[in-house]
């Protein structure tokens, strides 16, 4: 029995020892596990701390990326808008093109461009986006009721925004309520000429985080609009000035044309008048000449010598008058284009020789040598009779104003499609001031010869008209006491070149 108790006690003791040992071991393992859990928690916490760092860094990177993306977008939008503004010089087109170029890509869907009218003392809208016409009208009405705020903003010449007005809540709310937005930027548009304005850009998006970059972008845009308007207004001023000048020039041209027409009309009437008067004069003159001739013959009774002399004078003066009238009639016909020029090829030498021969008696009487100096044959396309009149007039004049023992030289040379003929004399010459006037009708140079001899002052005018009717021109070079040289162009007969012949 006692043995049994002893063994039971020993077994119990052993069990207690075993259990104690097991318990201690388990407790050690739990402790170890707890230590491991704590370690794991530590690692997890460390990882969580690292996660926080990652998240913060990622957020910063995201924000930076966002800012960069936005700046790039804004720059692109500004670049496009800037190009748009610079491509037109018409004020209304500037606003239209800005609207078409999506300024809302700067991140603001509500846009208003208003200008202060200094005369009417109120704001006008030049461009709107994101507002209906009704909204715009009502907005402008309210804005003009509170115009002092916006006029002072114009005068301050600075950009404001919901960011810069963070401390000035009253003003910020005033703008927010007026334009029905949450964020905004208002920047002045200040062209040097004309009305100044304000560019408003706003958004009602709660998502929009306004930045200083937005202020900068919109200030740049407002400046560009101002510059664009300035250019447009300068251009308009210049354009208007040019238009005015052109209008004045047109007016002057119209006046000149009218004056020319008037002159032509008067000239025509003068020619018609001269023609009519000449015809009227010629008939009685012919009668006078006839009667005088009959009387002079004595067929109507013997007349005293004195009367006979008077009758010869009447006849002489009547001839002079007839010549004058004929010259006048010729000039008149040429001027009015009534004289038909019968162009025909003619040898210049034939004409000059004939005229020189015709006037050789006169020349001899005065002891003047007429030299026809043509180096080559010249064929001219002229009205032969009229051309002879030109030569007769010019050579007669030369004979008249060249003193005895003088010389008259006729020469010619080709000049493009014409032949230039020069008739030079060693006469008394023409004063410089009279060299142009001598071709006018009835002009006579004031010199001793003219004072002593009669003349109509129509010869050179007639010559000029004949030459011009041939498409040529006449001019004179002269030095007093040295002589004169009358030069004129007559059309040459077209000679066929080898090419043309082929």
């Amino acid at each position, binding site marked *: 029995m006692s043995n049994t108790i002893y063994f039971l006690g020993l077994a119990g003791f052993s069990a207690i020892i075993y259990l104690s040992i097991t318990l201690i071991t388990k407790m050690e393992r739990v402790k170890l596990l707890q230590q491991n859990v704590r370690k794991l928690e530590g690692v*997890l*916490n460390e*990882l*969580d701390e690292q*996660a*926080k760092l*990652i*998240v*913060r860094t*990622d*957020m910063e990177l*995201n924000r930076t990326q966002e800012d960069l*993306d936005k700046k790039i977008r804004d720059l692109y939008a500004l670049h496009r808008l800037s190009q748009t503004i610079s491509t037109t010089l018409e004020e209304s087109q500037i606003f239209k093109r800005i609207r078409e170029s999506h300024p809302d890509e700067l991140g603001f*869907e509500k846009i208003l461009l208003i200008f202060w009218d200094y005369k009417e003392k109120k704001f006008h809208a030049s461009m709107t986006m994101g507002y209906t016409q009704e909204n715009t009208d009502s907005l402008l009405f309210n804005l003009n009721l509170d115009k002092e705020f916006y006029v002072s903003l114009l005068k301050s010449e600075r950009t404001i925004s919901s960011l810069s007005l963070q401390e000035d809540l009253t003003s910020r709310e005033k703008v927010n309520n007026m334009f029905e937005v949450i964020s905004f930027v208002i920047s002045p548009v200040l062209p040097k000429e004309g009305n100044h304005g304000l560019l408003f850009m706003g958004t*009602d*998006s*709660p*998502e929009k*985080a306004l930045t200083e970059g937005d202020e900068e972008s919109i200030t740049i845009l407002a400046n560009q609009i101002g510059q664009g308007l300035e250019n447009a207004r300068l251009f308009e001023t210049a354009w208007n000035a040019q238009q005015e000048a052109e209008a004045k020039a047109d007016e002057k041209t119209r006046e000149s044309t009218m004056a020319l027409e008037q002159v032509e009309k008067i000239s025509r009437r003068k020619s018609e008048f001269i023609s009519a008067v000449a015809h009227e004069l010629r008939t009685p003159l012919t009668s006078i000449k006839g009667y005088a001739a009959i009387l002079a013959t004595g067929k109507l009774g013997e007349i005293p010598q004195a009367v006979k002399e008077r009758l010869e004078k009447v006849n002489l003066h009547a001839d002079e008058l007839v010549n004058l009238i004929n010259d006048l009639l010729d000039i008149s016909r040429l001027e009015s284009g009534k004289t038909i020029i019968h162009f025909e090829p003619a040898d210049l030498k034939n004409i000059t020789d004939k005229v020189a021969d015709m006037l050789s008696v006169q020349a001899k009487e005065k002891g003047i040598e007429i030299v026809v100096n043509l180096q080559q044959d010249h064929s001219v396309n002229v009205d032969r009779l009229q051309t002879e009149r030109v030569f007769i007039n010019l050579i007669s004049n030369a004979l008249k104003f060249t003193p005895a023992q003088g010389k008259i030289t006729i020469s010619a040379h080709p000049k493009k499609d014409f032949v230039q003929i020069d008739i030079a004399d060693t006469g008394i010459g023409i004063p410089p001031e009279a060299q142009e006037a001598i071709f006018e009708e009835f002009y006579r140079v004031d010199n001793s010869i003219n004072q002593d001899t009669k003349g109509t002052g129509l010869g050179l005018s007639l010559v000029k008209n004949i030459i011009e009717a041939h498409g040529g021109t006449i001019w004179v070079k002269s030095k007093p006491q040295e002589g004169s040289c009358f030069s004129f162009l007559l059309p040459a007969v077209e000679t066929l070149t080898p090419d043309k012949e082929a």
Partner: protein
Amino acid sequence: MKVGIGVGTQRDILSCVKEAAEQARSKLGKSRIDLAILFSSADMASPSLLKTASEKLGDISLVGCSGAAVISSLGIHHHALAIALISSEDTVTLNTSYVKDVSSKTPFTAGRELSDKIQMDFRSGHKELLTVFSDGTINDSYKFILGLQENFGTIFPMIGGLASDNLRFRKTYLYFNRTLLNDAATGILWGGKFSFGLGIRHGFSPIGKHRVITRGHDNIIETINNKPAVSLYEEYFAMSFSQLKSEIRTISRIYPIGVYLDNEKEYLIRCVTGVEENGSLICRGDIMNGATLRMMIGTKERFIEAAGQATEDAKQDLTMAKFGTTYEQSPKVDLALVFSSAFRYTFLKKNIVEELKEMQRSLGSTTPILGVYTYGEFAPLKGVGSKGQAYYQNNSIAVLTLGS
């Protein structure tokens, strides 16, 4: 089924509708139109749009909504209208319905009402899929899907989204036949012989420790790990409470909360829209008390990849539905319907077109794609072994592939 897609991009709304309707009609050929799905940018939403569509296409069933932008096989369109004309060829049963006054009825009740109405009129056969569109400006919109699930059950396949506007959260539009609706929801119930696949991805990855929602309700997380919920963002972003109050909405779009749900592969994304004075976080969508959550982080590249992954998932799901295995060659996709988050549209900006390229890499360039950018997506997280329960999701892209 046969599908014809058309896109109108002209400035004038009526010309735009005509352009899209004529294109779609021409691609569909002479087949009868059984359904039109129409998405437009918000600036185009107007009664005249639906009137002109009706004039061009006849008296047809039309369902759709407005969005920040429109997705089509031709591109991503900021100002446009896209329409898909569907001919069921008598193999697909379709029913459409709508519910008005969602906010006054509450989204939950409206969801329940829509599910009643749309099933009541359903002619016959198996109900296979529900596509829904709801107003994107209503508070508690997430409850709409809960109302739908009360009648349909939680595992009934659903996909859809919340209509959006020009990112102002002011007014969104729903289209139902010739009626332009606000504060409403519309749906299409699909049944009969056809196959479909669903795919949804967001592209976010979890970062940092797991934490537990220790107290919360509806869309409010009061405490995380027994600390005011805002401390999560305070710790991660080293920002003060007042800073977070103004910035948390923006921050949480890129760094949202990911809620882990049992049996689901993807984390359910919840964006934070505000902070209450007691430090509670107001979420865009319901939260689950006791659920594990993690901070999420994403990159543009991952978001773009997500579009391809969601499309590939939807395509494989369609293959599975048709052949019972994913090893078969993919069947032809008649139409891919896409609901992509408006967040993705604003965040990806000019890279948004990459999203479409990723989808087309999976589907091929000739597959008709029609989609819209939404203020919230309804779709199942990728379920384990089934199509899974549909949730209200944030910042995600959901793809529905339809095949005959």
